């Protein structure tokens, strides 16, 4: 579980991945790039590996990997896939 500490501007994200699956690894690096570019000031990211914590998927209704969940600010938004479509991710995360 990795956490990127950020300032209190308040974007809270959770990324569900499946170990070293190519799509998951791609998603991690894509998300990092997006955060670095757009949310350098503040972003809380929790990464959950379903191979390690399968129970979390059931609790959070995660069906595919990778899945990114934005908890804050509301509304809660899910983004699935490798996050390589930067535009889509930015829209989902509320980047202006």
């Amino acid at each position, binding site marked *: 579980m990795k956490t990127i500490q950020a300032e209190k501007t308040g974007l809270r994200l959770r990324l569900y*991945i499946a170990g070293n699956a190519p*799509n998951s690894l791609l998603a991690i690096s894509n998300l990092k790039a997006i955060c670095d570019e757009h949310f350098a000031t503040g972003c809380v990211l929790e990464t959950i590996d*379903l191979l390690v914590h399968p129970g979390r998927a*059931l609790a959070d209704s995660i069906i595919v990997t990778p899945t990114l969940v934005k908890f804050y600010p509301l509304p809660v938004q899910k983004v699935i896939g490798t*996050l390589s479509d930067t535009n889509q991710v930015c829209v989902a995360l509320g980047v202006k």
Partner: protein
Amino acid sequence: MKINSPYPVVTKVPTGILGFDQITDGGLPRGRTTLVMGGPGCGKTVFALQSLVTGANELKEAGIFVAFEESTRQIVANAATFGWDLPSLVKKKLFFLDAQLSPEVVKAGEFDLVGMLNVLQAKATELDAKWIVFDGIDVLLSLLDDAVAERREIYRIRDWLFQNGLTGIITQKVGGVEQDQRYNFLQFMVDCVVILRHQVVDGTAFRNLRVMKYRGSGFASDEFPISLTTDGMQLTNRGPTEFEYEVTNERISSGLPRLDIMLHGGYYRGSNVLISGAPGTAKSTLAGLFVAAACGRGERTLYVSFDEGGAQIARNLQSVGIKLAPYLESGVLKMYSTRTRGPNIEEQFGLLRAKVRETNPRCLVIDPMSALSTKVSHVASADASQHFLDFLKGEGITVVNTSLEGGFTADEATATGISTIADTWIHVSYIVQDGERNRALTIVKSRGTGHSNQVRELTLSDEGVSLTDVFVAQGKVLMGVARWEWEQEEQATTRRTQVATDLKRLQLHLSQAEAAARLQVVQTEIEARNAEISLLADATGSASKLLRADRAMMRKMRHADEEVRAPKATSTNGGPKTNGDPTTNGGEGAV
């Protein structure tokens, strides 16, 4: 990819879908993947769910259901209509994973099922699951929008199933099975492919099932009609090619004593009786008699009626003295009325099968069977009624089914579909004659029993139903009033003949008596004559004696010295006829 399959021999697990386990000789391949394809509303989910429920209930095997298309809440609710109590199964045997993607989910790149499969693996281990269903996988995979990626995920699932030794069912929605090239690879990939089809012919919906492929096993490759009943999915197959019915010599009453006599003892137990006839020929009444007799024996009976309510039938039968109400109250008789303008024929028979299983009757009436036959406009369903009767025969249920004929064409064709399988065929027809309409009953055939070839008149009255001999006079069959008149006439003739004979006998007696009397008179006369004769003789004798005595006395008084020998002297004298009568001469001479 593994090259050698870990399951060299295909073992099978039953699905609990009636008929399907027969055509596949045991069910689905254990530890392998089955693909169920079909358009919307074909019953893919039901197929998968029923297999899972059967596994949990019958084999005590746990299973996982991954729902991509519907919420698990909906699925549980739908399953309740088939009588499957999923909530109680969920507690120990079944796990439902809601895998619906909300429409708000944004897709930003390729994804995979690695995480989900890992989750499911953990769950499968926890439950010791043997089954897993991926219902509506296409919903998720279509999001990938990439044929290669879709294929990769399907392979991933298949390999995962392989490694975990799970029996998998993947359902896949397709517009038209043949046209949809997109998922054709699925058919090559999996071990067993089942195709469900839903079509509408002449306004009637039909569901069909076809096994397209089954690796390592033989299967019946035809398209079979299926129906969704309260017991779940059922498939109508022709059953085993060989007949394996148990036969019995037991006879049961038709409810009409005279008909039993005509059949030389009644219907055979477990046989199939067809009563055909035009509208109003008392087919239902004959069926009602059978029901009353069966209930009277205490046998559980089911009366299935179409387009007429059970209460109405009971009331109508009451009018001819057949009382079903007590049997309905005691529960020995169940009535099931349904409309023909409902589900398609396979569905109808599916419902009937379910009803038969539920009530488990010994005797069954279907009134009228033709209500279903007339709806048949599809080749695949043409012999559905035969299949149903075949099923009943297998269950050993005695069936009386009525068949309505076109009243005016007198076409027996509606019945022929059933008549080939019917063991006993009774035909009731109208004979219109002399301004009357009367019912004539004949036995067309009766397998294994002798039966009368005579036409009988069927009469209904408040007191009940009876069969009467009919008369044939001058080449005409006499029925109704004509028969009554004939009977009266015949009785009168008999009476007249009787009286005439009696009269003749009396007359003969009279003349005999007269002759005897005459004889008596004659005899009496003879006696009288005899008496006269003897009287005469006596009188004559005594007179001559007296005369002689007088003459002797006279001679004595005259002192005659000798008796004159008169005869010679008199003859010389020429005395006329008095020779031998000396008295006259002597008298004259003496006087």
